[in-house]
């Protein structure tokens, strides 16, 4: 794996043309990754602004800041943007795009033009969604439950679902591209069980994207047909079945949760071994666990519907499968923990993010077990307990890992180091702010506060104030990296090819990498993660 690193004669990918046109027509996966990174970040802050308003509103029990209609539009905007425009594409499309080819020793993805087209689909869908917001918003919640969304809401439902529909194509195309790339473009010697876990995770995610997203597309088409043409699919007044929508919707949207969290697991599996200087514990189990999660994840959608009126027996099947899907997730947590054992650990910023990810993901996952328990779910579903649970998984988990990954590969992507102290400070601030924001919500939920409430009984106020205070800290934590990462672009120290002494293939080339990634196609002779904790270096064989 020791491809020699020499200074590039032809220059790196960043200096491959400076015009806007050269960026917007690029077929280089690394540049497309940047297109995603910039647009995804922009949406993250729009969704975050909505969250801020929501939290300010909830600081008092009366709905006094915004009207109930505006509030409903705010949490819908927040949900739609965060799910479809941030969480789903963030790690695969931004980090995955940049890294997948490099990690397997390829020069690009299998279909570079398709990759660019995916980004245009993403952007186009995002613009539709924004247009729906600007036109006055949508008040259905990101779940678009019928018959509210088909017959009762008089907001811009069609515009919004058109956006989501188009973004779906971006997902499908990216997924296809990744699958074909991993199958056909691995460097000589890069066998399946030498793949970094990040590649495994994105591979499994791609399979889910390709299989599940069409179901969402179909569901949205049916929704549009019903809303525009009043065909009786979901509305009982027209002879339809409202639960059918929920089944179809969650058949996509539950696996979508794994689309968000599997890549995050992949990121953690790269960072933790590197900063513990250890081979990841139980590599094969980790890979199998990814596949297990991806497979069983398709079979648990009904756990969103325990109180919907579906049959008791169906609920029992979905409940037991939900417990089963937790097993591979638990395995991963135990393996990361065991990876630390006898390591030589440094607490750089990416490592702090990754450890934060493990902690928050664990809490989110364990409370998922509580929700999978039928009787308890009856009380807790549609309350703030659920809000807390999925923020722990998706924000504490996925976003933390995304930030960790961004910090880990930033030197590779830009050739620059960010100020380490600021990186650590932000990680700690986010971890602290996050817990203060969302832990009280578990208590609120058990106390019985329903979600999607714009005013609430006064006894819930204390916990809501704590949560809003946490959100202010969290917001500051999220803004910090924006500052110092931008700063580093201009003033950061040069990174050199491998500042972390990591063993992945992507570190065996210059930072930023040359246009075609490697001077010469590398030959792989050993597994990923060949770290030696005794010397703290690469292990010799």
């Amino acid at each position, binding site marked *: 794996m020791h491809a020699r690193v020499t200074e590039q004669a032809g220059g790196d990918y960043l200096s491959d043309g400076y015009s806007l046109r050269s960026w917007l027509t690029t077929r280089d996966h690394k540049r497309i990754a940047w297109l995603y990174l910039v647009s995804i970040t922009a949406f993250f802050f729009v969704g975050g602004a909505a969250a801020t308003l929501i939290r300010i509103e909830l600081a008092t029990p009366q709905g006094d800041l915004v009207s109930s209609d505006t509030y409903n539009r705010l949490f819908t905007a927040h949900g739609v943007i965060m799910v479809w425009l941030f969480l789903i594409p963030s790690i695969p499309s931004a980090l995955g795009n940049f890294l997948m080819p490099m990690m397997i020793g390829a020069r690009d993805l299998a279909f570079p033009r398709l990759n660019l087209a995916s980004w245009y689909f993403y952007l186009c869908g995002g613009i539709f969604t924004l247009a729906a917001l600007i036109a006055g918003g949508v008040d259905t919640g990101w779940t678009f439950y019928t018959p509210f969304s088909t017959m009762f809401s008089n907001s811009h439902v069609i515009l919004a679902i058109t956006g989501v529909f188009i973004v779906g194509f971006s997902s499908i195309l990216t997924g296809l591209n990744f699958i074909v790339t991993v199958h056909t473009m691995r460097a000589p010697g890069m066998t399946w069980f030498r793949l970094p876990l990040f590649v495994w995770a994105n591979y499994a995610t791609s399979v889910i994207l390709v299989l599940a997203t069409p179901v969402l597309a179909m569901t949205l088409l049916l929704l549009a047909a019903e809303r525009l043409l009043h065909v009786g699919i979901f509305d009982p007044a027209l002879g339809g079945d409202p639960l059918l929508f929920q089944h179809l919707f969650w058949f996509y949207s539950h696996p979508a949760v794994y689309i968000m969290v599997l890549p995050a697991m992949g990121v953690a599996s790269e960072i933790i071994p590197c900063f513990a200087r250890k081979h990841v514990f139980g590599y*094969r189990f980790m890979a199998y666990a990814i596949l297990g999660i991806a497979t069983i994840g398709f079979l648990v959608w009904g756990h969103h519907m325990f109180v919907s009126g579906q049959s008791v027996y169906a609920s029992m099947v979905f409940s*037991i499968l939900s417990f089963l899907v937790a097993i591979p997730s638990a*395995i991963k947590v135990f393996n990361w923990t065991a990876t630390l054992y006898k*390591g030589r650990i440094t607490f750089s910023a990416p490592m702090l993010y990754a450890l934060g990810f493990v902690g928050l993901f*664990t809490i989110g996952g364990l409370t998922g077990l509580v929700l999978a328990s039928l009787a308890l779910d009856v009380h807790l579903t549609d309350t703030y307990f659920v809000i807390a649970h999925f923020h722990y998984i998706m924000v504490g988990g996925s976003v933390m890992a995304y930030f960790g990954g961004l910090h880990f590969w930033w030197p590779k992507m830009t050739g620059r180091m960010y100020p380490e102290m600021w990186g650590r400070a932000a990680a700690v601030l986010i971890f602290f702010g996050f817990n203060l924001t969302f832990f009280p919500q578990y208590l609120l939920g058990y106390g019985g506060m329903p*979600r999607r*409430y714009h005013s609430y009984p006064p006894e819930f106020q204390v916990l809501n104030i704590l949560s809003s205070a946490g959100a202010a800290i969290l917001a500051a934590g999220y803004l910090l990296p924006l500052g110092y990462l931008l700063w580093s672009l201009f003033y950061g120290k040069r990174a050199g090819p491998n500042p972390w002494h990591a063993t992945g293939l992507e570190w065996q080339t210059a930072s930023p990498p040359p246009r075609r990634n490697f001077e010469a196609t590398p030959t792989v002779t050993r597994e990923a993660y060949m770290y030696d904790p005794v010397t703290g270096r690469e292990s010799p064989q």
Partner: protein
Amino acid sequence: MNGGFYLLPPSASDAAARYDILMLAEFLLTGFVALAVAFLIVYFSVRYRRDSGADRSAAPVRGRRLEIAWTVIPLLLFLCAFAWAAYDYAQLHRERPDATPVFVVAKQWMWKLEHTNGRREIDELHLPLGQPVRLVMTSQDVIHSFYVPAFRIKQDVVPGRYTTISFTPTEAGEFHLFCAEYCGTEHAAMRGRVVVMRPDQFAAWLQQGNASEGMAARGFELYRRYGCSGCHEAQSSVHAPDLHGLLGRTVHLQDGRTLVADEAYVRDSVLLPKKDVVAGYEPIMPSFAGQIGEEDLLAIIEYLRSTGGGDARTGH
């Protein structure tokens, strides 16, 4: 219970007591795992930090036995948790022949409730202490969800079907009633209260107020007005099943299925008569969809209940 800050919600039904124990058990289990993981991460982080002199030779990269152990042990624990929770959940949906029905119709944005004697209320539900109730619920527009945190019960209220839930209040007092399924603009205002009273007080309360003739009597009138009796009375010349004592009876269907007649079955038979055709009868009944509203249907069901049968549970 109004006002003030509380961490744990009041526990005021038979379900609440059971769920709280289960919650405590799962809290201890998950709390233990979370603390164990947190402890190990912190402990390893300190012990094996870069500058410590800890021994790192022969660091393991896998451990089959360990991995099997931490797969199988959680699996067993999870199965226990599943079984426990599933059992309690089944209790919630168990048929309780002794439960008094209360009919609930939800609409944007209010709860309309009706007791069997015809007493109606809006956004308030009065219940007798210690007596099982069974809510029979439907919605006139979108999906709502009937949620009483103090009872730990929640059930979606779905247009186009009846959903039911049974429980016994175990504590007198006033409790929040929430709508828990997002239902549009005034979703957060779709709140009310449940008032649990001593049975004698409740009986007195039930007699006050709008002295209508009672649901069953109203239902009987509707039963005639909509022409149900024309076919279903014993002396009718049309070959149609006798509906006396229907609720709770086992019904054999033409396609070989059997089911126990409940409110949802009656509703479907009226609105979608082709769905469950009774064995031995021609599917000649016309659909009343669009003609009979939900509240009238509930009254008709209540009339049928009053005619006795295995599931006769009310006087009127």
